[in-house]
């Protein structure tokens, strides 16, 4: 794991039209973003900055699955994750709140 900040932009590195929650529901889903971008970056770097600007808009499920899913599905500790994540959203600052709310509300999978 590299000490330092990795920077990820949803619009540049994933899609300008983020989609639904699950891969089975449609393209550019939150689940796909989590698996292909977030997990990889979190494995590589101690801190991660995610830029949410420049897209056509987010469904709340996308945000919930991408960030809340890290706790629910991938076993990340919510406190540790919040410490490692920096969210940038100049266009819609309420998304920053949504991301951290999704992490706080996510319950780890039993077993």
């Amino acid at each position: 794991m590299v000490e330092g900040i990795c920077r990820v932009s949803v619009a540049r590195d994933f899609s300008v039209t983020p989609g639904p929650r699950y891969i089975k529901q449609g393209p550019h889903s939150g689940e796909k973003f989590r698996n292909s971008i977030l997990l990889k970056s979190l494995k590589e770097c101690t801190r991660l900055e995610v830029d949410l600007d420049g897209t056509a808009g987010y469904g709340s499920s996308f945000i919930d699955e991408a960030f809340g899913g890290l706790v629910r599905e991938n076993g990340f500790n919510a406190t540790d994750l919040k410490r490692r994540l920096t969210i940038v959203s100049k266009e819609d600052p309420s998304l920053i709140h949504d991301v951290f709310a999704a992490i706080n509300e996510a319950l780890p999978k039993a077993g």
Partner: protein
Amino acid sequence: MADQGNSRLQELARIEELRKRRFRKELIRRRTTRLKRLERFAEVEEVKERYRKVLSDNISYVHNEYIPLEVPDVLSLRQNYDATCNLLESIRDLVLIRGLPVFLYFDNVKHIQPGAALALTSEVFRARNLRPGRGHRFPLTGNFPQDERARRTLVEMGFFRLLHIEAPAVDWSAHDGETFHLGFMTLTQADPELIREFHHDLLEEVVLLEAGARRKLQGALIEAVSNTIEHAYSVPPPYAFMSRRSWLGGYVNPAKREFLLMVLDHGAGIPATLDATLIERFIRLSRFKAPTPQDCELIQYASELRRTSTLQPGRGKGFENMKSFVRACDDGELRVNSRCGQYIFKSDGSEVGSELSKSLGGTMIQWRIRHSSAPLKLPSDLER
């Protein structure tokens, strides 16, 4: 005129007789299959003999005969709800359950409301896809409306395009220039690019949306479609269905600076797909008027799930986004029809729930926004 009426009545009586025969035939088929399974072969012949006596001649005639259904003069879920739902129910009953071919008569149609047109298009789409016709015939067909305006409205909505029917010629010069319909779209995936394409070009011109509001609009539509895919068909609906399919439609009115967006599915309905334990919890908290909650109450409850922090994934958040638009605009409405319930949320924050006599056969969300003043800006989640 009287002769025409009599011949029409005779025609209907003859068709009713054919329907009864078809029904009897189906009944006998089921009985004989059951008897064969029980190895009671002697009784099979007995049942068949009884059947032959009832049905005299030319049974195959039934298969090729189109059952006529008259489309009401006002096809609307607002002004003529019962007659419109009767038509949709008849199509489902005849084509999907009885397997009979149907001919839709559009002769008297004068007014077509977008919501009703979307519901009819989806029914025809389903019938034509799930019940392939016999002998190069479609299970459901019809004639074109006589009324020029009604014909033009259907063409503009993409009724014929979606059903792969050659559209009739229409006089576009007579268009009122007020209401422009967004061509119907059907999806089996919440494809964000298609959804953006659907609303992007026209809506941008009509209602001045602040950049944040534009992004919320896209997000709300993705939520609505993905909720359909994830939840609407989780409980099998009473009729044959095309799983994960949703329909989009709408119109824009530049003069009034108004748009309407609609999302429809053929699922079991919001009340049927809600988590039973959550409903029980709400019953215990006396949130419902009666011990058995009505459909409209359950729809309202579903629209509040996010606010009540039940945190059932994916439920209620889309509604909350739609409601924030309705609250922020000059005049707007969120109308949800599901099973027999209807729930309306208005700009002033008022909520009206009512029970209707018939079910639409799925869930329809209609989202109307009119805003003519400064660019529509939504309060952020933090301010709410």
